[in-house]
């Protein structure tokens, strides 16, 4: 499960720290106490920044770092597609073998494929992504975000 890529992101997280944003959320994984505070900043529908702070296991920390790397600079629609693809991968119970198309979308995030085999850890990997979805809904008005990601 601990791919080199994951460990790299864990040890050298991208974009960590809280910066100015349009909305802030705080998510907790009650079963293990992992926490994240996450802010999003939009420029229209373009993601200007995702900043975050939190504590938790390597999976949840690396996942937030990957999220930052992948989503910052993207248009909302693309970001949502990435989020959905990542969700699908994580809920696959190890049954999805990422193909080229998926790799193209997810880049570093495909390294989490192995985590999907461990139900107890899937929530860790998803923590920041769920926080982002929630923050985005708040920042842009829930309708816009909900309709597309439901």
């Amino acid at each position, binding site marked *: 499960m601990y791919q080199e890529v994951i460990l790299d992101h864990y040890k050298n997280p991208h974009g960590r720290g809280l910066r100015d944003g349009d909305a802030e959320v705080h998510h*907790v994984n*009650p*079963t*293990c106490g992992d926490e994240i505070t996450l802010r999003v900043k939009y420029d229209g529908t373009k993601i200007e920044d995702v900043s975050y702070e939190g504590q938790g296991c390597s999976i949840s920390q690396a996942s937030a770092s990957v999220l930052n790397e992948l989503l910052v600079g993207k248009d909302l629609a693309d970001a949502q597609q990435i989020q959905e693809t990542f969700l699908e991968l994580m809920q696959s119970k190890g049954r999805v073998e990422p193909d080229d198309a998926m790799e193209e979308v997810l880049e570093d995030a495909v390294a989490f494929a192995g985590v999907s085999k*461990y*139900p*107890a*850890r899937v929530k860790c990997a998803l923590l920041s992504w769920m926080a982002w979805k929630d923050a985005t809904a708040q920042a842009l008005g829930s309708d816009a975000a909900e309709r597309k990601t439901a």
Partner: protein
Amino acid sequence: MTQLPGLLDTEALRKDFPILDRQVHDGQKLVYLDNAATSQTPRQVLDVLSEYYEQHNANVHRGVHVLAEEATALYEGARDKVAEFINAPSRNEVIFTKNASESLNLVANMLGWADEPYRVDHETEIVITEMEHHSNIVPWQLLAQRTGAKLKWFGLTDDGRLDLSDIDEVITEKTKIVSFVLVSNILGTVNPVETIIRRAQEVGALVCVDASQAAPHMPLDVQSLQADFVAFTGHKMCGPTGIGVLWGRQELLEDLPPFLGGGEMIETVSMHSSTYAPAPHKFEAGTPPIAQAVGLGAAIDYLSSIGMDKILAHEHALTEYAVKRLAEVPDLRIIGPTTAEERGAAISFTLGDIHPHDVGQVLDEQGIAVRVGHHCARPVCLRYGIPATTRASFYLYSTPAEIDALVDGLEHVRNFFG
């Protein structure tokens, strides 16, 4: 050998049940006709139980080690099996309990502690029937005592059916919950669910169905049933002891308060307050009966591999045969419906004025296991003015030859005390 249409291949099936080979009282072949009390357990279930303990045993949820992941997958997999077996809209509607009694108490307690609109209090009414198992009477009596609610019930007709003639007076606008048995364990009666549910829905009352004697014997579809809660118990359906089920509609389980508190059922705990996990976990405090749930899953696999419709047909054929044969026994009076229509495979009877204890004992000496007493449904005995009954009850492995043995045995009982 008596051949009846619709029978299962019991010769093959009986090989799955080691206990059916037992001999009792120095060489009497066991004739097990006490299936309404508990069913026997097939080797397929026992193997799964052993394998669980020998290979995968661990506490469920939250573990990151292999055994914990495996045990969790098996336990939650059993929930999936139950959900499919009863056609539940969601697996999250399946709560594991220790038996049907706990399931029914859970419903009563949820409603006692609920907020409006579900709350049972001194201005509201609870409706049950006179043919309930004590496990569907006492929880409601306790709830009524403790909340001041009024307990009402449907009476019985002389031929062992619910008397619904006063349904509009029994179920009223004050009724919060109607709880009744789908198949009576003492009378064998199959109750007219639709009529009762329609009236309950009219007044906005919740409906709880005690399916303890239905789930083992016939296809059970909670969606077509249209109840709000359905309870049943593992040990009567080829599963282990120590496991029961409560199915409840998701939005109710979300709204209703927890009952037992503890590990597994929480979201987050501090000394000052706690929040609860979503259903079903909210209602599963403490280490659940893990192996037993897994065993129940295996029992469901076993039953499904035979087919619940085939089991129903088998038991129906046996019941038809049994009521016919029992009618030949002088002085025998069936307590409950005297035909196989709308009845299950538990048949209660009296035999002249020979006390059921004596009937049961002398049958036992011949290897025939029946149950005697009030079968945890004493109000039925009171209703029919009898101290107790003898009850023979069949299951998928029961045979016409066993019914013949029962009839011969009863003849012997009559001679013995004649």
